[in-house]
């Protein structure tokens, strides 16, 4: 009985996610139609002649009505065909592959460092709450999150690339690089990203566990003589998993979709920069494709957070 209820709940979440994705696809399409300016003009720039503009508009099929273009596009996406970029005629799916790979690589490195670190620091802060360690951790975390990411990036660049020359300031990665070379290249942007997302996750971990620590059963655990760390690990943490996973997923999503500033200053060939380039060129198919990928990442990660929350919470499993 219990397990089938869980399956239904999970199926509902997934169905919701898919539905949401369709809604987002319509929104993205509508949004790209509202952008000011005109694709042909943006491609040819200030130095375009009216004749060249008219030729290009014709060639790009910009004269069809929007609804026709939406369903043509949606059909393509469902069959795995993202179309070709208007601006340079390249196949979008294959260009995206590299960029998405790079973005996921950087996000993964940053996540591998930041997620365990944030949770560990959160646990430490709870263990020594209101003491010196808690204050130092919280203070540093707040400071790093209050600084804009480009500032953190520039500071890292100044010390570790320009002064000490330990790491390159240019994080361009390409296929012929070995894994270690790639790691060295992304060291600085990954560090900057770690600083950006660390505090949020750490603070949420601390808050969620502290919240649980008020409960009666923690008092019971204390009374039966468990050490503070054991209480946190065995009793408090499992009950605080849902909010922690939630905030971790939000930050993972941010690492994928929100890092364009870091990409630009460290010259990292990721998806964000790719999107911005094509937005300024009004390259609608690419903007739509990337927008959809970002939406899918966001919805997917949040869905995972929801599912983990369902699995971790007996009350959600067996609603009265």
């Amino acid at each position, binding site marked *: 009985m219990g397990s089938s209820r869980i399956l239904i709940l999970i199926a509902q979440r997934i169905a919701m996610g898919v539905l949401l994705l369709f809604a987002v696809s319509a929104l993205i399409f509508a949004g790209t139609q509202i952008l000011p*300016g005109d694709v042909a*003009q943006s491609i040819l720039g200030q*130095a375009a002649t009216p*004749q060249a503009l008219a030729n290009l508009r014709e060639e790009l099929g910009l004269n069809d009505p929007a609804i026709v273009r939406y369903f043509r596009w949606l059909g393509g996406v469902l069959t795995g065909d993202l179309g070709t970029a208007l601006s*340079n005629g390249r196949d979008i799916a294959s260009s995206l592959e590299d960029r998405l790979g790079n973005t996921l690589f950087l996000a993964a490195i940053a996540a591998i460092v930041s997620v365990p670190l944030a949770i560990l620091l959160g646990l430490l802060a709870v263990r020594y709450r209101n003491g010196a360690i808690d204050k130092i951790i919280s203070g540093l975390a707040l400071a790093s999150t209050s600084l804009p990411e480009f500032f953190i990036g520039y500071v890292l660049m100044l010390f570790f690339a320009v002064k000490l020359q330990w790491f*390159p300031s*240019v994080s361009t990665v*390409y296929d012929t690089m070995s894994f270690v070379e790639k790691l060295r290249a992304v060291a600085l942007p990954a560090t900057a990203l770690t600083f950006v997302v660390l505090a949020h996750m750490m603070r949420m971990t601390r808050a969620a566990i502290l919240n649980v620590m008020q409960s009666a059963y923690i008092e019971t655990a204390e009374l039966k003589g468990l050490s503070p760390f054991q209480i946190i690990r065995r009793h408090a943490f499992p009950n605080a998993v849902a909010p922690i996973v939630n905030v971790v997923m939000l930050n993972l999503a941010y690492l994928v979709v929100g890092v364009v500033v870091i990409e630009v200053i460290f010259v990292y*060939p990721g998806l964000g920069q790719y999107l911005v380039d*094509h937005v300024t060129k009004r390259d609608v198919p690419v903007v739509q494709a990337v927008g959809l990928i970002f939406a899918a990442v966001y919805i997917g990660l949040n869905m995972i957070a929801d599912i983990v929350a369902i699995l971790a919470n007996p009350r959600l499993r067996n609603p009265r």
Partner: protein
Amino acid sequence: MSDELAYLGRRVVAGKMSRRDFLGRAAALGVAAPFANMILANTAGAQTPKKGGALKMGLVGGESTNSLDPALWLTQVPQNFGSTWGELLVVQSPEDGSPQPVLAESWEASDDAAEWHFKIRKGITFHNGKDLTPDDVVQTITRHADEATKSAALGVLGDIDTVTTDGDYVVFKLKRGNADLPLLLTDYHLVIQPNGGRDKPDEGIGTGPYKVEVNEPGVRHMSVKYDGYWRDDVGHVDSVEVIVMNDNTARMSALQSGQVHIINRVEPKTVSLLERVQGVVIEAVPSKGHYVFIMHCNTAPFDNADLRMALKYAVDRQQMIDQILLGHASLGNDFPINQSYALFPEGIEQRAYDPEKAAFHYKKSGHSGPILLRTSEVAFPGAVDAAQLFQQQAQAAGIQIDVQREPGDGYWTEVWNKQPFCASYWGGRPTQDSMYSTAYITDADWNDTRFFNEGFDKIILEARAELDDAKRAELYREAATMVRDDGGLILPMFNDFLDAHREEVKGWVKDPNHETSNLRAAIRVWLDQA
């Protein structure tokens, strides 16, 4: 450059004359100090090149939307990278702007300048092993001149009627005479491709010193030395890598930490900081590019000549140069031509800031109330500050300017060439004729000042077909005066090109025709590594 200046330059380099004396002599010859300095620097740079090394450039102006098709080049990364693998028929001399042979060995014009014979160099191979033929040249030109093309060089080639081969020659027949044809062919889009690039325009096959090795638009491009290259005076390093760095700070730190040898577009604000960094050299070169405020001559209130004149007197050009570009610019005089152009009209009086004259013309115009000036950070670097400075300067003459800041996104489609008064910029053109025909004659593609003047059009057409330089210069003086005194152009300053490189980069040619040494820094410099 005149022979005398070249001689004097060599004397300074040899230590027989002081730099101050040189500048004095140059001034006597009618050459302004920034240009004289440039001539001097180029003479001093003439040393023996070293071969080898891997050159890295970090440049702004690359997007993932870039293509290797020369017809589509608009920004610095494809332009610079293009000069490593592709070549033109003609390039413009860094010294006097005259046409210099590249793939075209020589050329002659008929007396009316309507028919031109270009002799195509023999024994040159493309990177795919195919020989360069006059037919490749014909196909290249006709592809770019095709009305159905998307080539940005279309406007330049509008005058061409037919292009045909004749033995080793390519024959251009023009709709009307044009004495500047060789210079029009210096347009960076007109890279000669096998069969004109008709088969595969973006394959990146040319005759240049380097052949394309890596092409990742928006990320990096690399080319390596082509063994069969035909000449020895360019292409000194073994390989060239162009890395896209659109962030100013990223470029600066990459240069400081030695990860790249050359960067472009140093911000005027940071020049003085970068100058202090050891091992870094700043190259400031006076350019043909200019920053402008443009008024539509056919739209009220700017259809009133006195109001236009009032605004021209109301801008303090020197203060604008000092505060907006921190001195890295030269004075503009409200016509779009400066000393970097051949046949520059000497001796036209420099217009100066004069609030009294401005007030006089303003009163005479009968206009009252605020004047709306639109600006945006994309109009030119510092355009928003410049507009506000203009506002203050004009206030002294009792003219009220309201500054409206527009979003950068869509500025070139919604504001520029649509609104009657806004900030903008122009890059240089190879000749005075192409500058005027692009933006000032009545039926110009981008007549962004709505300057309709039949007399002016006639002068430009007459000068175009005139092969006698003295007569031509006189015609251009008249044209310049007309734009200056009657046009809708307020031109406070010609900006400098500001590039920077590591000390070990030698042989940098200061070239006013385009930034990064006329886009040819990669093939002109060499690396002097210990």
